């Protein structure tokens, strides 16, 4: 069947040479090479589920009175059409709640998959020349995923996301000189305004997904052209790629991952409640519940706001708000360093060669230490974002906990980096000692009290 299809296409397009090489393209078999595919399948799932939701969601801030038996405590309440339409979509639409929940779960997994994929790329040095071209595209994709997640989370106009939106608007306003224009551009006015949901909707379903689709295509096209990297090892060299051909072996593997991903997301959507907006209530600007957190991929920014210094700077009639430092300057600086990392590393290590083979994390302690420090830093900020929940669980003062994070955010990354360097050096020493062969080492204590090593190579 494939053969006749290929022949039919070849007759009309002369595509056989391309298809022949495409279907026989080698994909490395190591499991971690599928993390990027997980992110891509999340994108497909989120497009499909999101399309269904657009049939029922009303991107409107018009005030309506809700009448429904599904949520008795909201019967007769005035709310935005957006919130009311999400209630209707959740309680009165075929599989509406399942799809809405699976869509939201997918957003959480999408961001996590993108970061895990980038971790694999980073710690194995896959971003080195010539793939330094694809690294900034990947980082931009991550930012787009976060932006789409946040705008989507804000669409139902519930109490929790409304409060988050107000914080986001305040952060936008804190940008010197252009802040008010930026806030106006993204939110269509001072929240709550009649334009906000409509504008977020356009960003959420049109601009960001289009940019995601375009950049993802470019991302994969560059990967296709440059071919995969691979771990060093048996038969894997700088000038070849060892793996399964795209058709049929890798296609089946990849489809298995796709089915597995879709299955997990639908199971989560069906069995685990996410963002129960009927419990949070419709957004009103003068109140907010506690505890209040955003989705996890924004949580590190919330944490930065919680532990950030109260550093407002007054320059004559102008004020740079204290929100600017943790809300804008910090993430901008972090991402600037991440964008520039391939070139920073090249300059620091004077390594201008092209690399087709990957490194193990222990082979490059400086890079590993930097990556561990960045992950620890953001993880600490993320934890600081739920300090109130932790304070309650531990029965300690939330103020003291905030001070712990103010220090830990800077100290623990350094400590983690130092430990990472130490572990890398130990592993380097072990590999230098063992060479290519794993060995069993027995430590014997002699009668004099000294120690002796007895080494036996384990045959392959």
């Amino acid at each position, binding site marked *: 069947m494939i053969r006749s299809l290929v022949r039919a296409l070849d007759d009309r397009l002369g595509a056989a040479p391309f298809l022949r090489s495409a279907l026989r393209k080698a994909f490395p078999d190591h499991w971690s090479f599928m993390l990027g595919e997980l992110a891509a399948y999340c994108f497909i799932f989120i497009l499909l589920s999101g399309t269904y939701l657009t049939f029922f969601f009303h991107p409107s801030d018009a005030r309506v009175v809700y009448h429904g038996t599904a949520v*008795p405590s909201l019967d007769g309440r005035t709310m935005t059409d957006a919130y009311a339409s999400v209630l209707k979509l959740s309680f009165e639409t075929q599989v509406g709640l399942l799809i809405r929940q699976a869509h939201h779960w997918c957003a*959480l997994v999408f961001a*996590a*998959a993108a970061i895990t994929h980038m971790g694999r790329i980073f710690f194995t040095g896959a971003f080195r020349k010539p793939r330094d071209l694809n690294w900034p595209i990947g980082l931009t994709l991550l930012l787009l995923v976060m932006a789409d997640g946040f705008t989507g989370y804000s669409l139902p106009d519930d109490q*929790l996301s409304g409060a988050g939106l107000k914080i986001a608007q305040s952060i936008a306003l804190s940008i010197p000189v252009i802040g008010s224009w930026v806030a106006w551009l993204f939110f269509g006015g001072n929240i709550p305004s009649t334009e906000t949901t409509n504008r977020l909707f356009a960003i959420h379903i049109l601009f960001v997904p289009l940019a995601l689709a375009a950049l993802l295509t470019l991302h994969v096209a560059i990967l296709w052209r440059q071919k995969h990297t691979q771990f060093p090892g048996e038969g894997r060299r700088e000038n070849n790629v060892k793996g399964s051909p795209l058709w049929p072996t890798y296609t089946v593997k990849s489809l298995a*991952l796709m089915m597995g991903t879709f299955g*997990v997301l639908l199971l989560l959507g069906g069995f685990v409640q996410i963002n129960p907006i009927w419990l949070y*209530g419709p957004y009103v600007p003068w109140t907010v519940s506690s505890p209040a957190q955003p989705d996890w991929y924004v949580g590190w920014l919330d944490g930065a706001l919680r532990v950030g210094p109260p550093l407002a700077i007054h320059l004559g009639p102008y004020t740079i708000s204290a929100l600017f430092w943790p809300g804008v300057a910090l993430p901008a600086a972090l991402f600037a360093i991440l964008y520039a990392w391939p070139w920073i590393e090249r300059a620091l290590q004077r390594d201008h060669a092209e690399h087709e083979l990957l490194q193990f994390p222990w082979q490059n302690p400086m890079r590993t230490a930097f990556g561990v420090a960045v992950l620890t830093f953001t993880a600490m900020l993320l934890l600081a974002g739920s300090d109130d929940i932790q304070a309650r669980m531990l029965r300690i003062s939330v103020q003291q906990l905030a001070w712990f994070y103010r220090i830990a955010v800077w100290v623990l990354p350094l400590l983690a980096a130092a430990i990472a360097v130490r572990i890398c050096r130990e592993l380097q020493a072990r590999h230098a000692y063992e060479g290519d062969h794993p060995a069993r080492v027995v430590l014997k204590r002699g009668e004099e009290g000294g120690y002796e090593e007895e080494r036996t190579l384990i045959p392959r």
Partner: protein
Amino acid sequence: MIALLAAVLALAASQTSKGMPPLQKAPPTQRVAVGAELYAEHCISCHGANLIGTPSGPPLIRVGAANVDFQLATGRMPLEVPGTEPMRGPPSFSRDQIDAIVAYVTTHGGAGGPPTPTVQPSRDLTRGRVVWEDNCQQCHGATGYGAVTGFGWIAPPITPATPQQIAEAVRVGPGIMPKFNEHALPQRDLDALVAYADTFRRPDDSGGYSMVSAGPVGEGLVGWLVGVGGAVIVMLLVGETLKR
């Protein structure tokens, strides 16, 4: 040790009350006398003789019946360690004994605070929800689960409280909670609020297993563990690991 002592004392106190006629039917003077005895045993060390207070506890002059009833019926008093946050627990006294202590306190200078409120059944959940959102959720959370208020103290979960206790807390404002009198919160609003708070016992778990107590934090954890974790299991099944 102190807890043990308190338990023994409470047990002893309940033993003595069994031997006596029910206090509700007892003449008021006898109830006050029993209350005075209990006060001297369990309260006086912190709140002082004649309710004037000590360095370990505030005076009870004009606290009112509702306050005393709330603190005792929710097990917040007597406090095991003076100066710590009073927490809900099993009450140390029987209903009769609490009434006796209330009678003693209100007849010895404790009268004058907010009176004991009464709660009428209400069906106005929509109004109750608005009252809750405007006045209560900032500390007790959108779902009544409670949250931290700072310096190690918490706004407790609402679900264990009876309608009467919720109404008392609203009028009295125990601890750092603000008090809401009839002008701030009319009786009809209070009734509606108590009716809405009752729905927290059966939160609408449409959509599956509910993590409302942890909100997006719990959701993020599940997204990583189940979502990414589940996908990685598939990857490990179809992919390969490095052979040394």
